[in-house]
C-alpha cells in the first residue's frame, strides 16, 4: 500500500461523480425510450469544439458561448429525433 487512504477516497468520489454525470444520460435514454443509443459519443467532442468555436472565432464571453453551444446541441437533438 503505497499511498494513504484519503487518496483513494477523494479520487474515488471525484471519478465516480464524473462517471455518474456522463452515464445518467445513457441510462435515461435506455430506460425511458428503450433505445440503445450507440450514437451517444457525438455529444462529447461537439460540446468542447462548439464552445471553443464560439469563444475563439466569434469572440464571445464564456457564458454566451456555452448558451450558444447548448442551442446548437438542442437543434441537432431535435432534428435527429423528429420524424419528418
Amino acid at each position, binding site marked *: 500500500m503505497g499511498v494513504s487512504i484519503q487518496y483513494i477516497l477523494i479520487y474515488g468520489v471525484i471519478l465516480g461523480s464524473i462517471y455518474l454525470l456522463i452515464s445518467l444520460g445513457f441510462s435515461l435514454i435506455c430506460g425511458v425510450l428503450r433505445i440503445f443509443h450507440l450514437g451517444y459519443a457525438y455529444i462529447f467532442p461537439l460540446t468542447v469544439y462548439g464552445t471553443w468555436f464560439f469563444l475563439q472565432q466569434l469572440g464571445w464571453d464564456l457564458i454566451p458561448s456555452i448558451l450558444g453551444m447548448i442551442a446548437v446541441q438542442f437543434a441537432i437533438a431535435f432534428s435527429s429525433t*423528429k420524424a419528418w
Partner: protein
Amino acid sequence: MGIGVEGLYIFTMMIVLLPVILGTLIVAPVWNIEPGMGWLYMTTAILVAVLGGLGNIKGTILASFLIGATHAVMCFVIGEPRFMNLSALILVMVILIFRPQGLARSESLW
C-alpha cells in the same frame, strides 16, 4: 388524444444533454481534448449503465461510484494505471455472471 409520444421522445433527448454537457465542461480544462475523445467516454458510460441495471437511476449511481473506486484503487494502490479499464471490465463481467440483470432491477424489456 392521450400522451404525445413524439413530443416525449424529443423532450427526453433534450433533457439528457444537460448532465452530459455539465460533466464534459467540468473535465475539459484538465483532461485531453481530441476529435476521438467520444469513444472512451461512451464506452465508460455504457459499462456503468449496464452494471447498474439498464434504465435504473439508483443502480447507475451505485455503479458509477463502484467503478470510480475501482479505477482509483487500480491507479494508486496497485500502481498500474494501464489496467484501469481492464479491471473495470473484469469486475462487470464477474458481477454479471452471478446477477445478470445488473445490481438493481433493470427495466422489464430485456
